[in-house]
């Protein structure tokens, strides 16, 4: 017993020294302890102890804390926006398909298999068709203007990234093509112009300029135009990251490929790009995270993504004055997505570092 206490004491000693090694440090610890305790207590009281968990505005009358009733009442809006009630099973089945396609990535054994990635990409058109509908298949059409909430956020992010990635790779290859000055110049202009603009402006211009550039007969709606703007913006950002990777591949690799008789595209596809992309994988995931966050900017062009529906709920007559609860909920969802992505990336990076050092 006494011995156990002594071991515990010895274990705690570094902690005690770190917290109160010097009088100044002890004071700092005390200050932080009090401040953190106070903040946690206040947050607990607001979010849990004194909060309302009903479903009606009346349930919030008497409480001093948060009114989570607005979330309980509005959650379908947050998930799918204005997608018609009787068609929502399609969204649910789409979610099942997407989760099934994403499952292999959770298993380390399957993660590196190229078929898994290709299959996941291949499900995207099918899922979009399921969501949009087709009279031939007996599914009533639900136009993108009805899509909203988390559904719209995920569609914008996933479709946007899937299309932007090849665009970015092409632009990066064009920019690094030494023997094609015309192509390189065009790529530099396009990349630098798009990258100097903020995403909101690109979205705004996409929705305002595209109707002027394109024939008036094309059926364009805001969601499609915003998606195109998003792809262009993300593509330019990807291009710069991929270019960094391309520059990191030793020239000897290209020379070796030439010595083997490989043509340009074969060299790029088999030799250069795999190495380049592996080099910049953390940066790629970082920019995917920033595009997931950036997708919330479609609010500025009048779309109701996850953030848009939160503002819609707060503007509802029934729930007027309750903007903080929807904002915090939506913020927490975005946070969970982005935090998970960055953690996964960090783990891959660690695993790879271990593998490469192990190989040596």
């Amino acid at each position: 017993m006494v011995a156990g206490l002594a071991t515990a004491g010895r274990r705690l000693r570094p902690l005690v020294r770190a917290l109160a090694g010097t009088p100044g440090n002890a004071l700092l610890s005390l200050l932080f302890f009090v401040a953190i305790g106070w903040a946690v207590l206040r947050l607990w009281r607001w979010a849990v102890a004194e909060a309302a968990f009903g479903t009606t505005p009346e349930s919030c009358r008497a409480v001093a804390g948060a009114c989570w009733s607005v979330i309980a009442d509005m959650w379908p809006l947050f998930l799918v926006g204005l997608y018609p009630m009787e068609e929502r099973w399609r969204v649910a089945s789409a979610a099942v398909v997407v989760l099934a396609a994403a499952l292999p990535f959770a298993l380390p054994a399957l993660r590196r298999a190229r078929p898994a990635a290709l299959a996941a990409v291949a499900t995207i058109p099918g899922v979009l068709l399921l969501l949009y509908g087709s009279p031939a298949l007996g599914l009533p059409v639900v136009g993108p203007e009805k899509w909203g909430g988390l559904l719209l956020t995920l569609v914008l992010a996933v479709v946007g990234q899937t299309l932007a990635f090849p665009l970015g790779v092409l632009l990066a290859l064009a920019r690094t093509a030494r023997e094609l000055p015309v192509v390189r110049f065009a790529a530099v202009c396009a990349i630098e112009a798009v990258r100097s603009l903020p995403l909101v402006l690109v979205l705004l211009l996409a929705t305002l300029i595209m109707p002027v550039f394109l024939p008036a007969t094309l059926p364009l709606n805001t969601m499609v135009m915003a998606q195109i703007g998003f792809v262009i913006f993300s593509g330019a950002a990807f291009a710069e990251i991929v270019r960094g990777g391309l520059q990191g591949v030793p020239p000897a690799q290209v020379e070796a490929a030439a010595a083997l008789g490989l043509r340009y595209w074969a060299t790029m596809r088999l030799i250069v790009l795999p190495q380049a992309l592996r080099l910049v994988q953390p940066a790629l995931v970082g920019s995917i995270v920033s595009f997931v966050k950036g997708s919330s900017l479609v609010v500025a062009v009048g779309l109701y993504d996850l953030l848009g529906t939160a503002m819609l709920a707060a503007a509802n007559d029934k729930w007027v004055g309750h903007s903080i609860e929807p904002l915090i909920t939506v913020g927490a969802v975005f946070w969970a997505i982005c935090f998970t992505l960055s953690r996964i990336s960090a783990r891959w990076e660690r695993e790879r570092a271990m593998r490469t050092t192990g190989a040596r």
Partner: protein
Amino acid sequence: MSATAERPPGPRLWRNRRVRLAVFQAGFAIALVAVAWLAYRTTADNLARRRIGVGFGFLSREAGFSLGEMLPLPVPDGRFGLFALSLVAAALVAAALKGLAGRLGSGGALAIGAALCLAVLLANRALNPGFESFAPDRSFLFAIATALANTVKVAALGIVLATVLGFLIGIARLAANPLVRGTATVYVEIFRNVPLLIQVFFWYFAVLRTLPGVRASIDVLGIAAINNRGIFLPRLVPGDAAATLVAIGLAAALLAALFVALRAPRLSLLRTGAIVLASGAAAVAGGALVLPDGFALEYPRLTGFNFSGGMVITPEYGALLLGLTLYTAAYIAEIVRSGLAGVGRGQTDAAEALGLDRAQTLRLVILPQALRIAVPPLISQYLSLTKDSSLGIAIGYPEIVSVTGQVINQTGQAIEMLVIALLIYMGLSLGVSAVLNWYNARIRWSLV
């Protein structure tokens, strides 16, 4: 050289690599031109159908909308030349500072800065363009200039505040005290992973707009007031002698900077800046004793339905500034942390062996080296902050993007506004990176 001439009669023309590359590029260029021409034709058709003219003539037309926030600008309506001239002058200033700073040291750079401010002030007195605020009967160009001023106003202060906060948090991320370290880590992980727009909405709709109304304002010591229309603060009002006072202060600052440049050219920028600022402030304070009509404090007062007098931090400006600062500070903290982590352990040991204490080690040994690693990513972070200020459009802060949208709605001149916005943002990017590249070059010299 002679290899081409002596090349054996090889494969046919289309097998020649250079010919094929040239043909491919010509095809690419033709396709590009064709697409551009098609887009141009469609655009011309569409514009004609909507009766929208082409060209920048609309800029001098009456705007017809009002802006929620404006700074008085020395841009008298229609006098585009003066506005353009001041932009050119600013670019020249930046170029001159960049070119001369290396030779003259920090004192020289600040002397040039002070001299330029003095010259601008005197020129301003001589030309007397007058400062005017935007109004709906002013031109679109005036609206765009006001929007640019608003963007610069929020981005400049945001950069300063985010840097200070980011450095504190970045250093705290590596603190020995687990409570301090943990708090900093939680801060970074929360603020970095929530979209900036949600944070701006939070500060705007859930905090600043829910403050009490004008009648129930929170009174701060009788000199300031906080309510849902903004934070009302006292303001310095220039009197008749204000320009003279500022001129005296600038002249003193100029003298101090010249003194440093001549006598202590290797003094650090920070210390030179402190000396220059202190002498300028002392001269202004001394001058104020002689000239009583310099500056007066004007307090905000409740008149009718709102406060008047003093200055106001609007909820829109406040929310955008808070959001930008707290969000960017999380990124800057990570940059600072990796910069600090990038300085070798041996440096700390060596500093300890020399008898420096922890604070001295950080200030004299670690930070200067960490800065060298941190400056390039910091530059791109500042650029992001400047671009992110465009989120003002979502809460009605009239910066460049929201005014661009407003002008396009009013006139339909989308393509012209795209060109203008592109020029403005490229100019801002070049400006920010020019200043920081200059700084980057400086710290490199002083270290190598």
